[in-house]
């Protein structure tokens, strides 16, 4: 039994103005430059950064013998420039049809829909960013009970 909660939370301080960090998330050309680390790159990033707007990202990983392509789609749920951005993410095919993570070779337990929450605030010319990537968003399957379910889960796993 491990003590990890069912989300990833990362806080970073950047020596950059808040508007620049916001652009990193919302300008497709800038987003492509940082989103594919560790041998991956991002040839396609389509983003309609308005509430209800869709996003579609392609990630490519080149191995010596083949090229692996993964597509991700999602919807922007909150867009409050420059302080808060919330979007969903699911694996999909090139046409944007959602695929199950397991059919794409992801480990068991990977949820179908994840949600990314980015919060930015400025402090003395620097920007503090908090990113939370959570297993499933509120208001979907389970009638909005997911967040509480994950809270409980965290309590169970750390208790």
């Amino acid at each position, binding site marked *: *039994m*491990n003590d*990890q*909660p*069912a*989300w*990833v939370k*990362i806080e*970073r301080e*950047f*020596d*950059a103005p808040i508007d*620049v*960090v916001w652009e*990193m998330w919302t300008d497709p050309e*800038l987003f492509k*430059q*940082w*989103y*594919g*680390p*560790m041998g991956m790159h991002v040839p396609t990033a389509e983003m309609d950064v308005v509430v209800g707007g869709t996003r579609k990202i392609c990630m490519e990983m080149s191995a010596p013998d083949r090229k692996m392509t993964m597509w991700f789609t999602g919807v922007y749920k909150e867009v409050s420039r420059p302080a808060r951005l919330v979007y969903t993410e699911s694996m999909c095919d090139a046409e944007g049809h959602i695929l199950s993570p*397991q059919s794409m070779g*992801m*480990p*068991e*337990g*990977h*949820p179908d829909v994840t949600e990314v929450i980015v919060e930015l605030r400025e402090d003395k010319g620097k920007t503090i*960013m908090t*990113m939370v*990537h959570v*297993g*499933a968003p509120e208001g979907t*399957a*389970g*009638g909005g*009970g*997911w967040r*509480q*379910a994950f809270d*409980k*889960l*965290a*309590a*169970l*796993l750390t*208790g």
Partner: protein
Amino acid sequence: MTDSDQLDAAFSALANPTRRAILAHLLKGEATVNALAEPFEMSLPAISKHIRVLEEAGLISRSRDAQFRPCRLNAAPLAAVAQWTEAYRPIWEARFDVMEQVMQAMKDKRDE
């Protein structure tokens, strides 16, 4: 049940407030169905149904021999649900390292 089916069952079992309350109660130790039903304004059969859902999802187990068949928490499926995050953390960390470099490069370019 495959692992995937079991995780689906675990997720849907967790998406109900009564069942989460039952799990929270079981964190303190094993308990009988009667004891678990006590805080709820719900019939015993209704509570039993929730317990059956939790049992089928593998989140709790019940002893076979004891007279009152107490329920206890089974944490393994919960741990499996949580593990996907561990694959993601290093990817995000690496992304933000690159983001920092990109912003630094933009700043250097402006300063030139």
